[in-house]
């Protein structure tokens, strides 16, 4: 049986493709791109949240936030490891990120400007990520799907923590509630953009669906997210910044306004508010650490030589 045919049979039978199995070159490339982008997003995502670690308003919140940022770093590690099963290595993927040749989620190109942003990232950004990622636990590529099972559990914990942070603000003083509203105003649309272009404009969707890397379309996921999130905003008593948002009884879904696609493409192409800072921060940390990594390598080889002697 031809490789290609056998591969598609495994995929169609809902079995997993494992690293040693034959796979089409396009499948491998798509997965590397997607998993690396996902890993980069976790790592870059440490910056906007890390921005509030030193200023968290209470020790309890500081502990939650440090643990969360640490989880993101851990997700980055599993995902780079999943990508490595496809024959690339972490350093080479990071290098592509540093050179601007690899993307990460555009959501992290927005700044965190008030404490409520930490709640909004948990509630909206992690919420949108989970909506996207639950389908990835059933992805046809074994290592990726298994990494996603663990990541989704931790992300849903983060999402509840973020929402709980906002509940506290919304039940607090008018000033605290205003922080939550300000955060929702700034994070709502970028969160909807996290699902990517409309299905009609999405270049990767069709092939990814056939390979069962992706299982639900961008627009369907976005609708799911809106339907889930609107009642949560209502419970908080803050308003979603969309005058066109209303329940559509015929469709059984919320209708919502048009995304500003100019903004979407501007940020994707590197011209969002924080693109340059995020990459520069990452590159600086990496370059500042070069002598440390060299020291570790030098010490390890000295130690090997001594053991051998």
């Amino acid at each position, binding site marked *: 049986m031809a490789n290609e045919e056998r591969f598609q049979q495994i995929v169609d039978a809902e079995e997993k493709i494992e690293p040693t199995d034959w796979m089409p070159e396009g499948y491998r490339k798509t997965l590397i791109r997607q998993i690396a982008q996902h890993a980069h997003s976790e790592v870059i995502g440490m910056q906007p949240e890390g921005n509030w670690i030193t200023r968290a308003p209470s020790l*309890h919140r500081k502990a939650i936030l440090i643990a969360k940022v640490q989880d993101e770093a851990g997700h980055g590690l599993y995902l780079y490891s999943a990508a490595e099963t496809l024959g690339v290595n972490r350093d080479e993927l990071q290098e592509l990120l540093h050179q601007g040749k690899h993307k990460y989620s555009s959501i992290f190109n927005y700044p965190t400007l008030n404490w409520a942003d930490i709640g909004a990232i948990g509630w909206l950004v992690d919420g949108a990520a989970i909506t996207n990622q639950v389908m990835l636990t059933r992805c046809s590529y074994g290592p990726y799907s298994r990494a996603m099972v663990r990541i989704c559990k931790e992300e849903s914990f983060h999402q509840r923590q973020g929402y709980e942070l906002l509940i506290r603000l919304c039940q607090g003083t008018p000033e605290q509630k205003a922080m939550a509203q300000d955060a929702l105003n700034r994070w709502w649309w970028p969160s909807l953009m996290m699902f990517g272009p409309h299905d009609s404009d999405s270049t990767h969707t069709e092939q990814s669906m056939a390979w069962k890397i992706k299982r639900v379309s961008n627009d369907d996921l976005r609708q799911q997210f809106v339907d889930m999130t609107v009642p949560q905003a209502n419970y908080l008593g803050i308003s979603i910044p969309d005058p066109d948002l209303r329940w559509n009884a015929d469709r059984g879904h919320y209708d919502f306004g048009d995304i500003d696609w100019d903004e979407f493409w501007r940020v994707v192409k590197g011209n969002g508010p924080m693109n340059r800072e995020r990459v520069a921060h990452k590159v600086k940390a990496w370059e500042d650490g070069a002598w440390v990594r060299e020291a570790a390598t030098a010490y390890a080889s000295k130690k090997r030589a001594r053991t051998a002697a």
Partner: protein
Amino acid sequence: MTLVSRAPQGTPPPDPGDKFTMLLAHADDNMVLSQRLGELISNAPELEIDIAVGNISLDHLGVARALYTYAGEVEGEGHSEDQLAMFRNERDFTNLLLVEQPNGDFAHTIVRQFLFDAYQAELWSDLAHSDDEQLAGMAARAAKENAYHLRFSAGWLVRLGDGTYESHHRAQLALDELWQYTAELFEGNEYREAWESAVGSTLSEATLDVPDDPYQRTGGRSGFHTEHLGLLLAEMQWMQRSYPGLEW
């Protein structure tokens, strides 16, 4: 104690025999170091180190919270962990000068951590035998975490010291600069001998020289800090000071 002391001279010289004073001093050490390490997250030389630094920061924060909470109970004036951390000024903090020193390069971060971990190894094993059961329990738990921190910091110090020419030079420089804050670690205790022996053996493995500079700066335990602490606290306490009395 009155929180947010307005007196320019800070608090009266603390009585080291007083339990509240003692708890607060150790809480402040762990709080300030946690805050410093918190600044580093996302800036580490590699992802594994970011994770380790986050973990160590979180452990110090956990110790600080437990000690502040207990200090508040001992004091009996209803002060919470947040009040003790956020509403005391620079002159009222009694942490060691060592922990408030900036992160600097990775060699400074590691040397600071190593010197402090070696000190806390003695502290926790001592306090784990305290007659105060609550404190002894906290110390026993902290001792376990500290053993991991010490493995991390000593391991990195050896790699840096015995790594490349550059890393050796940076590690020695950091050691020379931070050494002036070590005499203070032994005020009011008898940890010096054990500490010197543990530190000496790691430094020798790291091919680093024990500094012989006699200059020593002290004063942290009585609120006479370096200029770094005020800025660290300004950042840490900003939200609580801007919005006093709110729930977060």
